[in-house]
């Protein structure tokens, strides 16, 4: 029996195929249920990137010395996003999912009263203003962004932000919030060869809470990187594999920079000189990181890393980038001066997110499957003793003073404080819901 006859026999086995049932609708329903219940908490979800990304502004804000934020915003608070179903778990869908935000006092590690983000809320992405007074919470069900006063814990009026808000960034002066709109103006069936030409980013004036004219960027913008000087915002578009610079003074888009693969996650060095885009599932560069010089807006040669790069963080001196390889269970250090990858550092299984302490001495990596946090000494690039934090490790954040790292476990519904002095875990803080994202207000 050769291969051809086997092929024919296999085809024969398919005779008598019954008509298709309502599979598409059923799977969509099941998928919505899964998505809400697990809120992109599967290892391949989006919140991991968000978790890694949104802690960066707070860390950068703190790394540059005492910012005005610390006095204006009061004491540091870690906000933990989670959610639960208001109805039966089995029938949980978009409309019965209730997002919650649990504030944790950084000084005492005590959780405050959870803030209800409302039924049908997404609330898995947020940015905090540099002054620490307002938290903007993305809500992809109603396609809005809602401001939350960190002083009163009260929600403001929702702001319409495109049709499917995704990544967000705020200017260092706190005046403009940029929100990616993942939905496209003319959605077409995803067929090979048919491409939608652009996506949009909506600028929102934080003073008036009004959205401005949407800015055309590449297709499917996932993330916005803010240059430390606040002059340029970079929209990272997964669909068109581009990075589009936006002048924050004029809200005009510059020429898009083409990168290989499909950039899902990206990071900008604290000195603002280089952007690194992480190519993941795309066919072009499945396991590479592409540097872009912001001085010339040109992409450099892709740097080979481990399988499925999923998160990136930098040392405050901008000398080293750490790329988390989700499928390899490693972290690749990259020298930003030479753009050469160092020896991969072994961490837990399915690492999800990474933070670097403000003093730059230690990077902490959280792993989903192993449920551990691995401290990495940035001086030697060697891993320390892993710290157990509970099953399904997901989000991680560091406080502005660098004394505490918060690590969230989805399965246990807890956030574990880790002392960066001793690398030991404190008592897990119960937040009740599945904590997917942590944002620290300075």
């Amino acid at each position, binding site marked *: *029996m050769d291969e051809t006859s*086997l092929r024919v026999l*296999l085809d024969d086995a398919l005779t008598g195929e019954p008509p298709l049932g309502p599979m598409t609708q059923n799977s969509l329903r099941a998928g919505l249920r899964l998505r809400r219940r697990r809120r992109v908490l599967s290892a391949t979800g989006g919140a991991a990137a968000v978790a890694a990304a949104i802690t960066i502004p707070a860390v950068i804000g703190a790394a540059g010395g005492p910012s005005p934020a610390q006095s204006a915003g009061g004491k540091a608070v870690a906000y933990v996003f989670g959610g639960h179903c208001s109805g039966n778990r089995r029938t949980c869908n978009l409309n019965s999912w209730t997002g919650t935000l649990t504030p944790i006092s950084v000084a005492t590690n005590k959780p405050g009263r959870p803030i209800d983000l409302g039924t049908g809320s997404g609330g898995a992405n947020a940015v905090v203003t540099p002054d620490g007074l307002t938290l903007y919470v993305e809500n992809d069900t109603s396609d809005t962004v809602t401001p939350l006063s960190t002083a009163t814990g009260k929600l403001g009026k929702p702001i319409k932000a495109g049709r499917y808000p995704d990544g967000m960034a705020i200017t260092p002066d706190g005046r403009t919030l940029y929100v990616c709109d993942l939905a496209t103006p003319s959605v077409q069936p*995803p067929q090979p060869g048919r491409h939608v030409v652009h996506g949009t980013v909506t600028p929102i004036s934080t003073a008036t809470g009004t959205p401005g004219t949407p800015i055309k960027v590449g297709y499917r913008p996932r993330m916005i990187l803010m240059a430390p000087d606040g002059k340029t915002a970079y929209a990272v578009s997964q669909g068109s594999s581009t990075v589009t610079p936006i002048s924050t003074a004029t809200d005009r888009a510059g020429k898009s920079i083409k990168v290989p693969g499909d950039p899902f996650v990206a990071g900008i060095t604290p000195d603002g000189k280089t952007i690194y885009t992480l190519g993941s599932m795309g066919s072009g560069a499945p396991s590479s990181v592409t540097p872009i010089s912001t001085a010339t807006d040109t992409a450099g040669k892709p740097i080979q890393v481990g399988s499925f790069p999923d998160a990136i963080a930098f040392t405050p001196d901008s000398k080293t980038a750490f790329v988390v390889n989700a499928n390899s269970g490693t972290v690749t250090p990259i020298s930003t001066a030479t753009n050469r990858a160092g020896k991969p550092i072994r961490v837990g299984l399915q690492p999800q997110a990474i933070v670097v302490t403000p003093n730059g001495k230690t990077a902490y990596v959280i792993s989903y499957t192993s449920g551990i946090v691995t401290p990495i000494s940035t001086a030697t690039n060697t891993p320390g003793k892993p710290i157990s934090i509970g099953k399904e490790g997901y989000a991680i954040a560091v406080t502005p003073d660098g004394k505490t790292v918060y690590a969230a476990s989805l399965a246990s519904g807890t956030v574990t404080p880790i002392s960066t002095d001793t690398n030991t875990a404190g008592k897990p803080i119960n937040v009740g819901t599945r904590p997917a994202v942590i944002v620290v207000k300075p």
Partner: protein
Amino acid sequence: MGSVEEFTDFAAATSPRLRRTAFLLCGDWHTAEDLVQTALAKVFVSWRRIRDQNTAHAYATRTLVNTYLAQKELKRPSEFLTGQPPDRPAQPSAPETRIVVLDALATLPPKGRAVVVLRYWADLSVEQVARTLGCSTGNVKSQSARSLAKLRTVLGDVISESTAAGRPLQEHDTERDTGHG
């Protein structure tokens, strides 16, 4: 929401082929439908990060096969692997090729069966199969060789039988070959 519309289009376009793959894996159309539904639901969860149709299809296939293998793993204690096709009640003297092939596939271990279906029916390359199953290309090759040898022994008799019973397999082959180009 854009993503829901896109996903619906994708699922409608891709589900017939996925269901056939699933059927060849499990041998039952109802189970096949369940497998596809489960796989597509998982795809939807990650939909926002999947870009193009090809990536999505590869991802869906991988999820489908892994769901199948995971279920097999769970069910292993209650299932028996035998070298002989199971008894079929009231079989006609010349069994349909369909049943014979499914019985032969059922003698393969789950992973071997997945390799055969992906390589010889879904037309994936050795590399693609390796990526789908998360194993090495060497492993795919050895699994293929072992599974083919097994199928040859199990199907060998049956093929001659069914041919003798009036099913002109050779001619049929030629017909299909020209059809394939």
